[in-house]
């Protein structure tokens, strides 16, 4: 087919387009729209993956993790945000990323851009990561961050969904951080810094609206753990969580 097409094109070049086989569309103005309607649409999505209350050993916390994207199948503009605020008002951690995402394979996107920390203090990072669906339906999001101070850190997150019924979904989730050097102003030691593992049970009232309950456990690791104990922080933190998963 290809070689035949090439032959035809070659023939066309030699003989001239008396009645062009090759050639542009006949209705260019409406063709543009037709092409857009058949594969070229741009979409957007806004999702709050976690929007939850955590018991956090008595220091109740509101935590969020969400993102939004706009674009087509290959190229998307992303905004990610994540953070925690004490229920009595103080925001402990807040960050947002602005990323360009590119589909590189059927199930994976590479994303690159900048991350801005707002709390505990302002800090800017370059961010590069990969996200997608690994074999066995694991949702993966792995990122590396280079801070304005030159510190290199990384995070890895994986989720899985187990359908108990068509609407009741058990979602185990694990997240871990890694620092390539000590990061003094974040109380991080080189090596794996922390791990958080949780399981959430959600009920999809609609696909877009799902309240959930769950439990989350986290602890600092390695050198970071030593720093934490020096600061008098608890090692193990087990928390009940109640929240909503929302998207549109």
């Amino acid at each position, binding site marked *: 087919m290809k070689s035949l097409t090439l032959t035809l094109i070659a023939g066309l070049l030699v003989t001239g387009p008396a009645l062009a086989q090759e050639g542009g569309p006949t209705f260019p103005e409406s063709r543009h729209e037709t092409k857009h309607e058949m594969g070229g649409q741009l979409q957007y999505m806004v999702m709050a993956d976690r929007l939850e209350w955590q018991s956090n050993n008595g220091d109740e916390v509101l935590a969020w993790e969400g993102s939004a994207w706009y674009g087509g199948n290959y190229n998307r503009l992303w905004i990610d945000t994540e953070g925690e605020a004490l229920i009595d008002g103080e925001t402990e951690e807040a960050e947002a990323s602005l990323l360009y995402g590119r589909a590189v394979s059927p199930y994976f996107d590479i994303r690159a851009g900048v991350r801005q920390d707002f709390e505990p203090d302002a800090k800017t990072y370059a961010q590069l990561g990969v996200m997608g669906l690994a074999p066995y339906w694991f949702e993966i999001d792995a990122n590396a961050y280079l801070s304005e101070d030159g510190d290199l850190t990384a995070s890895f997150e994986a989720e899985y969904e187990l*359908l108990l019924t068509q609407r009741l979904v058990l979602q185990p989730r694990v997240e871990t951080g890694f620092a390539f050097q000590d990061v003094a102003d974040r109380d991080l030691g080189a090596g794996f810094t922390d791990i958080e593992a949780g399981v959430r049970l959600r009920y999809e009232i609609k696909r877009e609206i799902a309240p959930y309950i769950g439990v989350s456990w986290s602890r600092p690791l390695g050198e970071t753990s030593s720093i934490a104990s020096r600061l008098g922080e608890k090692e193990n933190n087990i928390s009940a969580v109640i929240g909503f998963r929302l998207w549109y």
Partner: protein
Amino acid sequence: MPGWARAMIQSEPRNAFDLTIGKSPFEVGGRRGTATTINGTVPGPLLRFQEGDEVTLRVHNRLREDTSIHWHGLLLPNDQDGVPGVTFNGIRPDETFTYRFPIRQSGTYWYHSHSGFQEQTGVYGPIIIDPKGADPVQYDREYIVMLSDWTFEDPNRVFAKLKKHSDYYNFHKRTFGDFLADVRDKGLGQAMAERKMWSEMRMMRTDIADVTGATYTYLMNGLGPDANWTGLFKPGERVRLRFINGSAMSYFDVRIPGLPMTVVSTDGQNIDPVETDEFRISVAETYDVVVEPKADQAYTIFAESMDRSGYARGTLAPRENMQAGVPQRRKPFLLTMQDMGMGGMGGMAGAKAGEKMTSDRDHGGHDMSAMDHSGHDMSGMKLKDGAAGGMAMDGMDMMDAGHNHPGGPGVAMEAMNPQERLDDPGNGLGDDGWRVLTYSQLRSLSPNPDPRPPEREVELHLTSNMERYMWSFDGLKFNEVDGPILFTYGERLRLTLVNDTMMAHPIHLHGMFVELETGADQRPLKHVVNVEPGTKRSMLITANERGDWAFHCHLLYHMAGGMFRVVRVADAPHASAGASHSVHGNHGEAIK
């Protein structure tokens, strides 16, 4: 409801119609919404033509957006085909477009909008063309049975949801409970092996329909199942039922319990009559059947959606207000390795080569018994994105030869050993103890007009990535394609479609019939060919209609996802010197 669905359909052909596209209230299942309608009804009015007439169709656009009407299955000059961006510019708001063309054929057809998602919201209707000579089909009475799917959602929203979560409407996914049942039935090892295999590939065994009864109400002649469309008969009459699937997304499995059906034509073209008890009608196909109810009783016309999430239903009855029992819906089937194009693979040792793993149909059997060789179980297929890495792929390279198209994010899978399976009634059918029509049973009533063997072959792959809801031919969505697929005017060619996806696709070529290669000496003429998952199907085409013709999957959201191309039929460059005719003369005219 249009007049033709309310009582006997009009029997007099006409050669001029006025069709006004507008918004009208539409009610089904006790709920009111707004439909896009032709002359105020869903479906639109019956267009009954006479073969040999020249017809005039004035289409008035009363919408705030462009519209168009495509005359599905009709042979006509290219500029009358009604596809915006391909054969004309569409019909602007408050404009009228006048179509005018001679009628060169007879049979059951239909018409629908080719703009945006208007087809989903109600812009479709039936066409009957009476033959010039005697009709080979004898009947005393006729009805149109037009099947369709209705949603109260905005179709743009439906599409957006599929783009974000392609399994949004799937409410029969495999649950942990199903897994436990599998463990009970097959043992832990077997159940785990199955789960492992499918989840390793990130493929869902339950992905039969993208849009389901979770949002759809299935309609028969514009009525929901409870409204029970009824066609009357006198016992002993021969009743011709002209089935048209005008759905956006839904295949139906049609039967009339207690009444055998004699299929007399498909896609408007007469075939050797063949008696059956059930047939699958893919989107945009038509089937005419004759039934002879002899008893003074009601019969249910039961059109079950392929994914079993709902049904359309009506009644044939000797008197008004009668009804017969409505059958239970069957359980949805599960996809098998065969649907991945692995039928008959060496790696499937133990499974019957080329045959459906029949035990899978009732979920109960040991359908994957052949698969319990970890490391070898996927040797027959190629998955993208490295999932096949580390798997035994020995001997598979040679089978990959047919896939010389781009891969990338839009292609999740390639069928390694697709089968034709023309004698297979389709997934989920054939094990109920009654007859089901197959493509291999279709034989044209008349000889094929062009006896030439094909001069060349064109192979196109149906490709997709379900996760991203990308649909394409040869890995390219229409918005990524520059040129048309070239057919040389007058040539005879074989088109082979290979389904590299897990779903069935009703593929429609505008402008020309294709002769489906079923093995019959008189190949059936089709305007839509259903290509089941993991199959390849080939057809002969005489490229004798000049111009640019749309060629696409007739699942509306697959087309919107990119599964659309243009076929250009034009003279070969060397033969065209001095040709004075225009490919795209404009017969229609737009008037304000």
